[in-house]
Each structure stands twice: as structure tokens, then as C-alpha cells.
């Protein structure tokens, strides 16, 4: 069970919004890089986000670059899951590979700051602030197996190969 506060974003949050190319020189200094997470979309995000909080977005979250640093700095900020109406392909795979759940559901009814509770195994989100209950789409089986091991690298470390 995941529990935290919703940080609401709109449609089309790109990897440049999440961690822009102008910080490429910090990519081998992750603690410094993480200080700039989502800076261009919400400059107050990094100072307000707490362990367990959730990103709640609209359509096509994470479009653009293949930089795995994008889900990585989100995870480093303490975010426990991303809820979005839809997500870009590479970002989706990258997030799961880092053990960060991305859940597809209709996020319109969730307001910024709402208290959320996510039951990953039941596939439900409860908005404690407004009483709404949502169900999210199933994560594909192959990705669930990777997520269950905490990501792709721990998965390969354990199995030595794809056992999908």
C-alpha cells in the first residue's frame, strides 16, 4: 500500500520538463542533479515533495528523451508512484526498470494536494480527500515481474537472463 500527497501536473510533461539537457553535466552527480527535478514545470516541487508522495499527471507523461535520469530523479525525490492518463513509451519502460510504478487511470478527479492511497495488488487508488475510488489499468505481466524484483538490474542480477 502506497500513501502520499498528490502533486498534480498537466498534459505533455516532457523529459526536458523533468530534467533538462542544460543539467547534463550533473548526470554523474545524481544528488546534485536530483535538486532540479521538475524545476521547469513547478519550481517549488523539489522543496515540497515528501517521501511517498505521488505525481498525478494528464496525457503523454514523460515524452521525449530516453534519459533514464528522468524517472531516476523522480524516484530519488521520494515519489512512490506516478499516476497518469497516458505515458510515453520509453519513460514507462525506464520507470518500471527502476522499480517506480506508473499507473494508468483517469486522473481528472484528483486535485493537487489530495491525500491518496494506492493498492498495487488490487489495482485501486483511493482519494482520501474527496472519497473517490479509481481503478488503474493492469501493468503488463512482463513488466510486473521486473517491478516485483525492484527493477531490471536487480532482476538480471538475480536471474542472469530474461525469464519472462
Amino acid at each position, binding site marked *: 500500500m502506497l500513501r502520499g500527497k498528490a502533486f498534480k501536473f498537466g498534459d*505533455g510533461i*516532457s523529459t*526536458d*520538463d523533468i530534467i*533538462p*539537457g*542544460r543539467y*547534463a*553535466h*550533473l*548526470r*554523474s*552527480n545524481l544528488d546534485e542533479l536530483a535538486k532540479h527535478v521538475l524545476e*521547469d514545470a513547478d519550481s517549488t516541487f523539489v522543496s515540497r515533495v515528501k517521501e511517498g508522495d505521488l505525481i498525478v499527471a494528464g*496525457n*503523454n507523461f514523460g*515524452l*521525449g*528523451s*530516453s*534519459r*533514464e*535520469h528522468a*524517472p*531516476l530523479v523522480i524516484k530519488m525525490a521520494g515519489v512512490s508512484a506516478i499516476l497518469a492518463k*497516458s505515458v*510515453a*513509451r*520509453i519513460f514507462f*519502460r*525506464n520507470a518500471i*526498470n*527502476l522499480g517506480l510504478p506508473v499507473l494508468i487511470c483517469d486522473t481528472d478527479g484528483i486535485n493537487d494536494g489530495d491525500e491518496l492511497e494506492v493498492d498495487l495488488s488490487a489495482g485501486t487508488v483511493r482519494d482520501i480527500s474527496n472519497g473517490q475510488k479509481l481503478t488503474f489499468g493492469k501493468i*503488463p*505481466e*512482463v513488466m510486473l515481474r521486473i517491478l516485483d524484483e525492484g*527493477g*531490471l*538490474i536487480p532482476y*538480471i*542480477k538475480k536471474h*542472469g*537472463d*530474461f525469464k*519472462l
Partner: protein
Amino acid sequence: MGKTLAEKILGVKSGNDAIASDIVISQVDLVFIQDTTGPLAIRQLRESGLKKLAIPERTAVFIDHAVPSPTHALSNDHLVLRRFAAEAGAVMSDIGEGVCHQLVAESLARPGDVIVASDSHTVTAGGLGAFATGMGSSDVAVAMGLGRTWFRVPESINITVTGKFQKTVSAKDFILHLIGRVGADGATYKALEFGGDGIKDMSMSGRFTVANMAVEAGAKVGLFPADDVARDYLVEQGRVEDYQPVFPDVDAVYERTMQVDLGALEPTVARPHTVDNVVPARELKGTRIQQVFIGTCTNGRLEDLEIAARILKGKKHHPDTRLLIAPASRRGFLDSLEKGYIQTLAEAGATFLPAGCGPCLGLHQGVLGDGEACLSTSNRNFKGRMGNPKAFVYLGSPATAAATALAGEITDPREVM
């Protein structure tokens, strides 16, 4: 039942039937990393416990994004990459050789290959009929160590192309038009497959431009059949032995089919801050532009510099508009030198940057000031893309870029040709 290009290639490489929506484990024929995502991939590879490269002779390391390095931190990343390539026995491509996708197109990609790399524009090689796609550092690390990766076989959208381009209209206008129609997420998880008589009017250079931007509609791959145009290109590159015909079945099952008549297209521009925000260039007349950039894996090839040189020959760029040019590869740079395009463009006042990604991703070289606008031949115009979230990026063809550099405002190239 007939198969699409995506199903055919993944079928061969996975040894399975590979029908759309199947999960397959596929052989990887070429894997590469670049300087902004490579160091993390190397770290993940070490962490994974996989000891060595599965296909070192087909694993490549490119230093192309920050060339030459602007900061000591990036210089240290470059050191990591050079050391890794030497120790692991990978192919090394150092500064000044060019953008990874252009070098892969020139020398490494083969029709029917499965190619993965830690850069979203890996899709470029789809122009040659390779199933080529971008992934993150972890996926690419595992592909380097295992020589395999998993895919969900994508559904394909068939783009049937007819007609011929009007003068000054090119592949960039075609793909911008298409992304405008499909939307920035209209092809997410899917393959875009191009066919029809119209693709015969598209050079390999143009096909790379189109395939390169498939990801801007969300697509996993943008695929052209490996036809005679592809074969002629490989002959020209001195590697005819890499050719094999790769075509979809005539009764392939597509999710849907869209038609585009090349003859009906006009010079097209994507406005800030999304690639699907497209309009005809003529509608943006009067939009002042402080910087024009011609280059990148999208439009930094010989053909692109040729059209720019034709438009700018004997003229000077507008005094309030800077003109930056970065050839996509050293070979393209040398060919342009030989043909006189570099001389022409330099006389027109262009500032030349090394072969590489240049200012495209906002890391260095031509970072925009607050409120400034750039007309770029690159592939992304997201807020902050060119290094400043208070700046504006418009995307267009090399012809539109050259016409805009002359006029100082966004200009339909038909006005100056």
C-alpha cells in the same frame, strides 16, 4: 495472414511468430550508447553482474552530444566512455565524427537488423528498414550484456504516400505534417510503416529525417521497406553486402491506414512548445527569429546543407539573426566542403559548429537568451529544450531555415527560391 515490417523483423530475430501485441525476446544486432546516457548504462551493466559484451564488434560508444566537452564533469564522463570502449572491446567514435544516428546510418545499420540504443532518436535507422528503437540506460546495459532484449510486438499504422514533393518542400515538411495529424502521442507503442509510390520520391536522407521523428508521434519505430533506394544507398556507402530486401507482406494487417499526398504539402513549421503544433510556414510570416540552426540527426546531412547553400548563395543572413550550422557527420562535412557548400554558407555569414548534436538539446553552443526564438531543423521544441525555458523553438526544414535566416523572420522558402 500477412505480416507487417515490424512483425517480420521481430519474427526472424526472436524465432517466434511475433504477431502484434505478443511479447518476444529478440536478438540484438547492434547496440550503442552516447555521452549523456552512456555513463549510467555502463554503471548499470556493472551492477547487473553481466561480465562482458555479448557482441563487442557490434557495440558502439559515441561521443557526440557534448563535443568538444564544455565542462570538466562532462570531460570526466567522456573519460569513462573511452576507458569502457577500450576495455570492453567496443567500437569507439570520438568527438568530431558526428551524431551517433548519422554514423549508424552511414556505416552500421543493415536492413532487417534489430538495433537498440540509449537515445530516443535511434529510430532514425528505420529509414533503412532496421527495427531500431531508443531505450533507457538499464535496458541498453542489459542488451549490451545479453545481446537480447524483450519487446511487445507493436501494432503498425500504415502511411501510404503518393505524389511528388513540390519544389522546396521536403521530407521534414512531410513528417511535421504527419505528426500534426497523428498528434504527439497518436502513435504511442506503435510502429509507423511508410509505403506507397510516393516513397520512391524520398531519398535515403529524407527517409532518415522521417524515421528520426517517428518518436515525436510516440512511435516505437518508423519503418521504410529496404527497396532499391536503400540498396543504392548501401552501394554508395561501399557496403552492398549489407543489403537484403525487407518488405511487408501485401496482405499485412495494419491497425489503420493513413494517406498522404506529397504534392499537396507545403513548407511546414512546428510552433513552441510541442512538435504537433504545426502550421504552414507562410502563416508565421512576421515572427522574428534571433537564431537559425541547421544540423542534427534530423537535418544535418549533405542534402540539407545543399538546399541551404542554394538559398543563401551570394547573400548574407539577416543582421539580427544568427546562423549556426553543425554537419551531422565528418563525412557529410567533407562532402559539403568538396561541393563548395561550406564556402557558400560561410560567405553567407554562417557560424560552423563541430559535427555533433550542437545546440539541439540545450547543453551548450548557441543557448538562447530570455524571450529569444530559434528556427531549428532539429526534432524537438519542448520548453527548455535549447537550454532556456524562457526561449522559443520553432522546427522547420533546411529550406525554411535558410529562408528565415535571410529574412530575419519565419519565411516560406518559396518566397526566396
